[in-house]
């Protein structure tokens, strides 16, 4: 009973945050709504019994990735969005399409004979179990992911380095020779 109540509260926070994210005009309010969504998701993970994933969600998503988003919004001074008047495509195709997809998903879920709810605490998520999985069955994907992140870091370092390190300019004597060679060829 209490668990159903908690599930509904976290679910409402999630959906409310997501709708608020779309409805807000200032990007920083949208970013803060996204943080609320991630916190509510962490609550849902807790209800499923995956406590490690829940806390990691807070630490990494809400505590590091979203901080990065907020820095970008702060530093780029992204202002209030302007409101357009809406598009005809959205009215003709978008909203009926969304209703159709929603009904299809509901129908598929409803005719599932095994029931659609997962029991409380179904996901076995103690840190010990996750650690074993990460370092035994999923060792290769784990290491490959770290190389992926390393590539991203190297790309960021290259993009942020000053121009004269990326495109080396010739020395003044070489430049005079190049210009002279060009003149000789042209003349």
């Amino acid at each position, binding site marked *: 009973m209490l668990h159903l109540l908690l599930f509904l509260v976290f679910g409402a926070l999630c959906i409310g945050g997501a709708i608020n994210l779309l409805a807000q005009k200032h990007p920083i309010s949208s970013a803060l709504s996204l943080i609320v969504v991630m916190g509510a998701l962490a609550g849902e993970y807790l209800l499923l019994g995956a*406590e490690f994933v829940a*806390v990691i969600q807070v630490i990494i998503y809400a*505590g590091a990735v979203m901080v990065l988003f907020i820095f970008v919004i702060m530093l780029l001074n992204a202002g209030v969005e302007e409101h357009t008047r809406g598009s005809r495509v959205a009215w003709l195709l978008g909203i009926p399409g969304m209703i159709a997809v929603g009904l299809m998903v509901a129908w598929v879920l409803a005719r599932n004979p095994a029931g659609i709810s997962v029991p409380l605490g179904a996901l076995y998520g*103690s840190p010990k179990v996750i650690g074993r999985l990460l370092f035994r069955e999923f060792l290769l994907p784990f290491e490959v992911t770290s190389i992926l992140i390393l590539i991203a870091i190297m790309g960021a370092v290259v993009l942020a380095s000053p121009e004269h390190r990326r495109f080396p300019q010739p020395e003044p004597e070489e430049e005079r020779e190049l210009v002279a060679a060009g003149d000789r060829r042209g003349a």
Partner: protein
Amino acid sequence: MGIGTYIIVSLVKIVVALVVLLTAVAYIVLLERKLVGRIQNRWGPTRVGPFGLLQPLADGAKFLLKEDLTPPYVYKPLYLAAPMIALVFALTSIAVIPIGNWVSVGPVNTPLQITDLNVGLLILLGITSMGVYGVALAGWSSNSKYSLLGSLRASAQMVSYEVSLGLALIGVLILAGSFSLRDIVDSQAGTWWRWLPKWNLFKGQFVAFFIYLTAAYAETNRVPFDLPEAETELVAGYHTEYSAMKFAMFFMAEYANMVTVACLASLLFLGGWHGPVFGPNWLREVLPIFWFVVRVFFFIFLYIWVRGTLPRFRYDQLMAFGWKVLLPLAIANLVITAVVVALRS
């Protein structure tokens, strides 16, 4: 214990913890002023009450009665919310910190901790990560160059030192085998040769202890890492445009973070509440709390002592130190601890 009793006991624990924490924060401010004064060869506050002991009362009255100014061009929703965010996350971390063993008051048997989660240490790291928001949003919403620069510097510093903080704690985790704070303290019970206590500090986490302390000083923006708040640099950093109660909330959040760091250091490295226990039954239940408070007081004293003694780092020195010195040290500590534990088992 039925659900009703559980809720009432939890509420009582929450109220007691909050009252004790906020009073402690107020008196730590007084302690800092007195101690820094003595280090600088002057008395601190001495006029309000005997030895200045009622000074926090005067400070509280001042903050409540001061004019609460909102500058005209701030982004109001975040300007008003940022101090609350900072204070809420600073106070939430008291929920997982244990201060003693189980006690029985009448028919109720309860641990001296609001909740004993089995991922308690991770929750504390998560709350530390979320604490960056109070600083970042305060500086940006204040619409002032000092605030923005101060908050960007402070957030970058906090994010950088969080990495070394977490890595330094993994050594302790490997030794204890659990994320639960109570289990980590219980693994430090007992003594070797009847006199050397089995603290994690002596079990090989000496370097990790100093890495943790240094990273924690940087996380809480205290000297020698307090450039984002230094008056000579940035007026007052991210809380330049705040007055009265909102400023008091930032102040309380900073000192509450200090208390959390002190509690964690005593739990993880200094054995928590273990100490000589003797005497009648009621004394046996109170003495662990006393030992814990002694350790926490020692760390707060250390914070204030360092503040009165050391000059501050320049910002580029600060960031270079965090990434080029502390991080490799923390990783080395982790690798060595892991290798030693693996070879031993």
